[in-house]
């Protein structure tokens, strides 16, 4: 397996699930093309999560394969042909369940990481 730049194994697997959620979130306001999704994530996260913008595309295609998003060709703001992704009903559902699961996970992991004693009392 190849790792990207400074990311270690833990980082990659954390990012995969999180990236999927961020993409779904990016699309929750309406159809966007890949570039717009990348821009949104970059701005929304302060460039903390995307190592290379390219990693976004396999994630998008995988979501499409699993019918969480659908795609259509259309014209971009700059009047060029671009592939637009749209959130499907299943995708919207996944965004909801994924977000709450992610929040539970982060909260639990955060509490655990802040622990000061060897065993919680």
């Amino acid at each position, binding site marked *: 397996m190849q790792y990207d730049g400074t990311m270690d194994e833990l980082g990659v697997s954390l990012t995969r699930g999180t990236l999927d959620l961020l993409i779904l979130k990016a699309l929750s306001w309406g159809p966007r093309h890949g570039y717009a999704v990348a821009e949104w994530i970059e701005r929304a996260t302060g460039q903390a999560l995307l190592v290379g913008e*390219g990693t976004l595309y396999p994630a998008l295609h995988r979501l499409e394969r699993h019918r969480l998003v659908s795609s259509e060709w*259309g014209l971009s703001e700059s009047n060029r042909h671009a592939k637009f992704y749209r959130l499907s009903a299943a995708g919207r559902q996944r965004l909801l369940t994924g977000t709450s699961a992610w929040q539970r996970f982060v909260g639990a992991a955060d509490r655990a990481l802040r622990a000061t004693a060897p065993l919680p009392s």
Partner: protein
Amino acid sequence: MRRPFRLGRPERDVDDELAFHIAERERALIAAGEEPGRARSRALERFGDLSRVRAECLTIDRDRDRARRWGAVAGSLRQDAGYGLRRLRRQPGFTLIVLLIIAIGIGTNTAIFSLIDALLLRPLPVPHPEQLVAVGDPRQTASLSLGLPQASLLSYPVFADLRDQTRTLRGVYASGYAQRLDVVRGRGGDVTHPRGRFVSGSFFTVLGVPAFVGRTFTAAEDRTPGGDPVVVLSYGYWARAFAADRGVIGGTLSVNGVPLTIVGVAPPDFAGDVIGQASDLWIPVMMQPSLMPHTPWLSDRSVSWLLVMGRLAPGVSLAAARTELTALVARSLLEHATATDHDAIEHMLRAHATPVGSGARGFSYYRDAYRTALLTLMAAVGLVLLVVCANVANLLLARAVAQVREISVRMAIGAGRWRLVQLALTESLLLAVGGAALGLAVAVLGSRALLRMGTGVTLAAGLDGRVLAFTAALSLGTAILVGTLPAFRGTRLALATALRTQGRSVSGPSLVLGRYLVVAQVALSMTLVVGAGMLARSTIHLAHADVGVARDNLLIATIDAQRAGYTGPRLLALMRDLTGRALAVPGVAAATLSEDGLFNGRYAGTTVQIGGFSARADSDTTVAEDAVGPGYFHAVGAHILRGRDIDAHDNETAPRVAVVNASFAHFFFPRGDALGQHVLADSATWEIVGIVADIRQNGIRDAPARRLYVPIFQATEGVSEFRVVVRAEGDPARLTAAVQGALSAPDPSVAVLDVEPLDSLIGSTIQGDRLVATMVSLFGVLALVLAALGLYGVTAYTTVRRTAEFGLRLALGAAPAAVARMVLREAALLTGLGIAIGLTVALAAAHLVEAQLYGIGLFDPPSVGLAIVVLGLSGTLAACLPASRAMRIAPLDAIHTE
């Protein structure tokens, strides 16, 4: 404008998408103040590994496309099947009739094919059957030859030589028919006669068949004659006779009075190495002398009774094994040949070397005997299936026509024609598969019933993979045959209707295609009915053929005196005594003796030397032989052509004499001077004292062999079994009990077996013919009924369609009879055309069943005439109802319908 998602071109999609991203980024960077020359490389840098991303996206997209394609196919199939099922359920009567018709067609085909599979195709249920090599004539599964050692059937000493010397086989066993076994279970139990085989100790290990319960034989059982009184049961026999009780292992079974320990049971699917004659039990060949006293078959080279099977050593070809094995048998036979036999054996080996072939399908007498019969039946049921297809196609066609409105509405709302064809084909596939499922039940019952019809064949004709594949292929073919025409025809009609704004209401389109299908049905039925007629007439000829004796008056009793210890002069005295007692039975006109009897499958042969005769072929000196009692030819009602019968003076001390049949006399003495000549045979010289007309010995179809009859009291070979032949004044069957009683009277220990009229013995040799004729007739009737129904359907439809026309004619003063004639004329045209085509096909194909025919030519006017009458009558009957309906059309109603 939005373009729809492009299925199946992922490269272009991915490239366009990624290029757009890079271009957008490049523009953004320039807008943010980046140098235009460097913007592109910065954009690529931010993107990361472009080629890896592209490859990853492509993999995902291809996977997506594949899944969607299958999803689409499965989805539309599911949809079509659901639609088809709903449609079929809406018309339960129609569906049921079609299902039943298809079930009959596919069921009969599957039944016959399952028999063909079991008898002709299926390998033995053992590991690697392809490695097995059969030595000897695989048809001689129950043969016994005394006298000159044979090459096609081996004696035990020859088998032992083969076993010890072969290098091409890595395991070899011998198996031979155990003759009649008297089996008693427990004290005072009933005597039963299961079918058993003597096998060498390596039988189960060479075949690779493990014990189901207990153990099988080992090499130890091959060492000492009489040393291992054990028996292995077949699963079937164990289940039948012992209710599959595991407790019988270790128990004993009395076989021919010798207690044998049951050591094991063979697995359920293994019925032995003989296909068509399932074995009930296997006994070590070393036990043969104990079970059959006075018959030293283990040491006697003149007793040929064993077939041999071996497994090829690794890397050895069948051809190499054949070369070695034929040479080994020849050497063994010649090394031990007596001086008188040596030349005869050399002759025999030159003419027929030992057969060595693949043993994958085991040995089988019935495989050869029933091959033609089964293939004839397969052809017949194939024709039935074609009639079924034409019939169902016609029904579907009629319905498609009736539903033309519904279809045209569907087309009007945008359903493509292909889509509708697909719908129709899915429906016919549903019908075919449903019919096939029902047909499997028909097949299982049918093949069992066929086997039960007393042909003597015991087969495990079940539904194995091959049979199921055959059925699946048949149902697919049926679906295509019955579905295609109606589907295209229906949609074309609908297309025409949709284009026309006003469809005509009652008349509907003509059924040209339907008429072709009816002609096809009539033609196929005609072929079958002609065939059935020819086979039935052959069977009648067979059943009443002249066999050269008074076949309706003879009763033949088989006597086994050897087991009771009769040999030499005591045996001859017993023969004389029994003949006298039989003659004393009221109603008996004559009684005599014969060693081999008639029509029981026994054959005895010998080689002759005749002064002045020089053989051109090695087989020229081989003749058939029988030893007969005084007055034999008179008693059986044969015609003495010249000279005299064997008489009471031709006894042990008198000069040796012989009677020969006409074939013998003509062959060896073409100048007609056979009487008084001398024949050297069986190490003795015989003077010909009579010539008798040829008598059929075993098969009505077999050309009579050259036969030598010697007096039974002068026979040089030991007689073990003999027959008392009785001629009755009336029906011989009525004397059965009296003759049985008279023959059993002097010594109850002498077994009197099979007291049977000759006519029924002959009947059992033509049972296969009778069965085939009956079955083909049955199939012919089936096809006939279907064809008549088809004709009825088309005629009735046409009549309804022409209601207006007929009404008009009637209104204009036409006689009702004239209208009926019009209907009948059209039906007669279709029937006549079908009959003509069917007759042509039947005549062209007659030679295919030539082997099944007897006493009639390839063109048999009575069969053809009968078929024409039957078909013509059926056609008229089928047309009568619609014709009478046409006569009763009320002119006004008819005009209103237009």
